[in-house]
């Protein structure tokens, strides 16, 4: 058995699977997005009580935090946990595990082919719920849904690569008539035993998503091209980052930025007044607080090749800088120099952590 098909919508089917896992005692708790039982707002719940799963929203097109980042705090898990992750959240978790910020031990990873999520400020709106059924219809037909985040529209990594379980949604026309749960590993098959539904030996066929993948690639080119500033070099950077208010919200929500204290918030970026006076006498004018662009370039250097394009940085930016698209564009470029794809494979080593004697010889 490698597939169970449940006669329910994707969302209900996913919840039924989670209930099976928790109800049968195969896992101790489940980490999933849900509607908070007290407030009704979306959050991420670690749910240990089957009734609590009535509020689960495992595949809702919303991201309130990168669950891959949240998952770190729950690992190493002392008891089995099932975890619902969007593909970009899973990739983020893989990158975190490579940095010793988490462990796969005792985890059943469930992911799905993702149609993208809506911007955070829309997802908290009153009428957001009304748009969800239409969203799933469009996603099933392989559309890029109008209104989802630009970063999601341009995401080519919407098929999970390291999941134990894949729920087929995006580009899968059959997902409107039932929920297909693919069991990719022995552990998944073992855990799914006893799950009610039609069992078969079908394996996940990536061809289902091929058409959507082509659309996403075209969209990505469009998004990346639109980022070109009019000016070159520093002028272009000032054009893009000039309105940054220095809140560092982008770094604080980033699943890859795992430093407890960012270097740019540390003492090493404090300057004394004589330093400013010297700068002033040389340049005539200074922007305060300093290092606005330096922060973004520094963060890019530190994490861009591990950027999974989850888009949270753009969601939290108070001045609407397209941070996610910029970092994704730069990140893909740097990663490609090393044939690296962030979060694709746990075995792939982080380029800057690996010493190769023969590398970039053309640099001399």
């Amino acid at each position: 058995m490698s597939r169970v098909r449940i006669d329910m919508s994707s969302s209900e089917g996913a919840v039924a699977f989670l209930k099976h896992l928790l109800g049968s005692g195969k896992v101790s708790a489940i980490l999933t997005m849900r509607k908070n039982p007290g407030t009704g707002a979306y959050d991420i719940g670690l749910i240990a009580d089957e009734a609590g799963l009535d509020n689960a929203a495992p595949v809702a097109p919303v991201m309130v935090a990168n669950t891959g980042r949240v998952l770190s705090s729950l690992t190493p898990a002392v008891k089995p946990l099932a975890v619902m992750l969007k593909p970009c959240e899973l990739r983020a978790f893989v990158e975190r595990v490579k940095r010793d910020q988490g462990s796969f031990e005792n985890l059943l990873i469930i992911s799905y082919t993702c149609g993208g999520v809506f911007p955070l400020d829309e997802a908290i709106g009153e009428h957001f719920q009304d748009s969800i059924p239409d969203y799933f219809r469009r996603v099933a037909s392989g559309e890029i849904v109008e209104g989802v985040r630009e970063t999601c529209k341009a995401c080519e990594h919407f098929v999970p690569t390291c999941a134990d379980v894949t729920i087929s949604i995006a580009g899968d026309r059959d997902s409107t008539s039932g929920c297909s749960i693919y069991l990719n590993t022995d552990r998944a098959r073992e855990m799914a035993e006893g799950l009610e539904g039609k069992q078969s030996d079908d394996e996940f066929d990536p061809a289902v998503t091929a058409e959507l993948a082509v659309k996403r690639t075209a969209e990505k080119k469009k998004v990346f091209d639109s980022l070109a500033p009019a000016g070159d070099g520093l002028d272009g950077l000032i054009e893009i980052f000039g309105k940054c208010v220095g809140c560092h919200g982008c770094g604080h929500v980033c699943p890859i930025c795992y430093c407890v204290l960012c270097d740019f918030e540390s003492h090493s970026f404090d300057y004394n007044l004589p330093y400013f006076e010297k700068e002033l006498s040389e340049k005539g004018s200074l922007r305060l607080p300093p290092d606005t662009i330096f922060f973004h370039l520094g963060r890019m250097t530190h994490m861009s090749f591990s950027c999974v394009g989850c888009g949270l940085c753009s969601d939290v930016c108070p001045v609407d800088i397209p941070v996610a698209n910029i970092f994704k564009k730069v990140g893909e470029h740097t990663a490609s120099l090393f044939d690296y794809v962030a979060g694709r494979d746990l075995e792939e080593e982080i380029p800057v952590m690996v010493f190769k004697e023969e590398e970039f010889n053309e640099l001399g």
Partner: protein
Amino acid sequence: MISDPEKQGAAMKAAGGIEDAVRGFLREALKSSAADAVLVPVRTPAEDSYAWILTNDPSVLDNARPAAPTMPVQGAKALKSLTRKGEGKAGIIAVMRPCEIRAAIELYKLNQVHLDNITLISYDCVGAVPLQDYISDPAGSEKRFDSMLKAGKTDDSAVKPVCRICVDFSLVDSDIHIGLIGQSGGSALLVPNSEKGQALLESMGMACGEDISGWTKTVAQMKVEREGARARALAEMGTRLQGFDGLSATFADCIGCHNCQSVCPICYCRQCYFDSDASRQDAASILDTAIERGGVAFPGNRVMFHTGRMAHMSLSCVSCGQCSDACPVSIPVADIFSYMAGLTQPTFEYTAGRNDGEPLPLRHFKEKEVEKVHEIVKGAEEEEVAHE
């Protein structure tokens, strides 16, 4: 440096608008070496926002907007980045909103800002356009703000909610204040508010013989109106925040990004306790809690973070509204914190940033203080005894 109602000011011609007059004043200050540099908001090259620029170049001031329509970075934060590590030799003039100056005074008390070589200039503030409004429509925001500034009157629909109920919109603990309210279009008042301010005006040959009582009166009247509006808004907020359920509902959408704290001028901790290892639970105990209670929410400690931050900084909160501007899920953080500040500060007869000589309540031990607490404790004890 508390204001003296008997004092006098200097008249400043402002035929080309108030900001033009201030630019002229600053240029003159640089040229006459009354100041070595000035710190003012300057429009970004892409004309999509403003940035604090420290300059000694009079020509840079052509692009300055001393009263910028919006407040992307709290001025006290700019001042902190400049002076946190101590004094230099340069004399610097900083032109800021009253709430920015008040924050600077609080940071001065917290040893995060040095003011010996800084001359603070404040002005009658008509409020600031919410950052999101400005970013989505810079040209329209400029227009709306300009007409407010010209009329010297706040348009409630154009400014941040906390600006609508701000009672400290005029003279604060600055060195020089620029009076705009109730002035006939062609002029403004320069009011010296400290010896340093007086000396600067004198060194620039500006005579302070102008009667300012008319301006003082108009400001006082406006304050009375604002106090009424403030009381009403705070009462409404008090109802909304009732009990844990009220708090929980208010912060329901919080995603724990801590942007509110990052942009807060008062939150000066390099690392917030709530971002530190000390506030983290280990994996096993989180799971235990989930099993015990049925579930655990992430991001966690929502109410705890906000009430914790409140406990730490509400005595110094200047209600500048930056926290609301930076919140990605539109929680009215500033209104909530301003409400709390309105309760905590009067308890200690303290107003954040009112006077640099007023000690911070929590850093100043008084043997007799907040006697009400003693009464409450005594009452509770007596009740307990009676109960037994």
